[in-house]
């Protein structure tokens, strides 16, 4: 017989193995959005999930995927709660998560310890990163550090659109938050 805490750990791992609906290459654990699993009795469970962005529409798909997985594991009652505190940050993405993003063609966020956008200066036609003040965003295809920002908002709120100055490929950058 498994103890309550062992079962909780198992449920946490199961919920954490659910793929992100938007970036299926990452699991919810690697994305860092799964906060806790609380078991009540033997078959009722409460899951704390935090959104990446306040308006991220993927949170609803994440909740129903978690519910499905945990019910399939014998849970009768699954409640997914959205928690805002402490606020999610891209620093919560695990290092395996960052590697997977890069392999998937998305430049991972740089690790940061303050909040807010990385400072930019205005170029003649495009915006450019401030020289050496921050670590460069590297092209996920060729690894070049010479890349330029095309738009600070891309296919989803969490990404910016950039282009490599060497291989000329456009790519998404998971921007720091």
């Amino acid at each position, binding site marked *: 017989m498994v103890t309550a805490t062992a079962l909780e750990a198992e449920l946490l791992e199961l919920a954490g193995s659910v793929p992100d609906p938007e970036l299926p290459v990452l699991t919810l654990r690697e994305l860092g959005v799964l906060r806790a699993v609380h078991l009540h009795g033997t078959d009722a469970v409460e899951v704390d999930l935090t959104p990446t962005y306040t308006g991220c529409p993927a949170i609803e798909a994440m909740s129903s995927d978690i519910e499905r997985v945990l019910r399939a594991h014998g849970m009768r009652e699954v409640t997914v709660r*959205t928690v805002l505190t402490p606020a999610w940050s891209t620093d919560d993405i695990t290092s395996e998560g960052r590697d997977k993003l890069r392999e998937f063609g998305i430049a991972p966020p740089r690790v940061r310890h303050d909040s*807010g956008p990385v400072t*930019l200066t205005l170029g003649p036609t495009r915006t450019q990163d401030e020289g050496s003040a921050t670590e460069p965003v590297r092209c996920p295809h060729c690894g070049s550090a010479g890349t330029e920002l095309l738009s*600070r908002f891309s296919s989803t709120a969490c990404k910016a659109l950039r282009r490599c100055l060497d291989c000329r490929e456009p790519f998404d950058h998971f921007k720091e938050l």
Partner: protein
Amino acid sequence: MTATGPATVPVTAALALGDDALVLSHRLGEWAGHAPVLEEEVALANIALDLLGQARVLLSLAGDEDELAYLREERAFRNLQLVEQPNGDFAHTIARQLYFSTYQQLLYAELAAGTGPFAPLAAKAVKEVAYHRDHAELWTLRLGDGTETSHERMRLACDALWRFTGEMFQPVEGLDAGLPALEARWLESVTDVLGRAGLTVPEGPRTGAWSAGAGRQGLHTEPFGRMLAEMQHLHRSHPGASW
């Protein structure tokens, strides 16, 4: 969406902040299919999505989010008149973004540092809003310091919206923030951006008798009714519909 927070929520303040986010989100959404370049199409929609997420959390603190968004009459909305102003040309949208996101970033940073009922949402949203302000600042610089036409349009837009900026710092019941100090920092920040963009700070009054207490008291400008009619039409025509 559920959000954790203390049991007592100042409803007036939650509506004020929630309605600001909801109404501006809807206005920005109107750019879909009309933005000048594809990147801006995506940027404005993403900013709108961030604001919609904030609105959902804030309105849920005050009551049922759908009922509040879709079933209130114009006079029950507590948003600033600034955010309900029509998009106008791209310069008007950018001027509105600059004025509002600068205010929102300062306000949310203060709320996030406190322990009040808005602290959890503010701590999350302030990081998103920093990107909105950055976006508005860069476009203000590019348009103000661009061609003769872009400079002139940006100047006209900043002037036209200036009279709606005083309202942001009028007291709101239940909103625990040092508004006079925020106003001083807002003016400093906007003056700095306009200066670097080669624009002058508009001269007219920032509020006046014409505003009659303004949006925070439920008094709105004429274009708001039309916006609301469009926003609420589907929900009112098909109550409880889902897809």
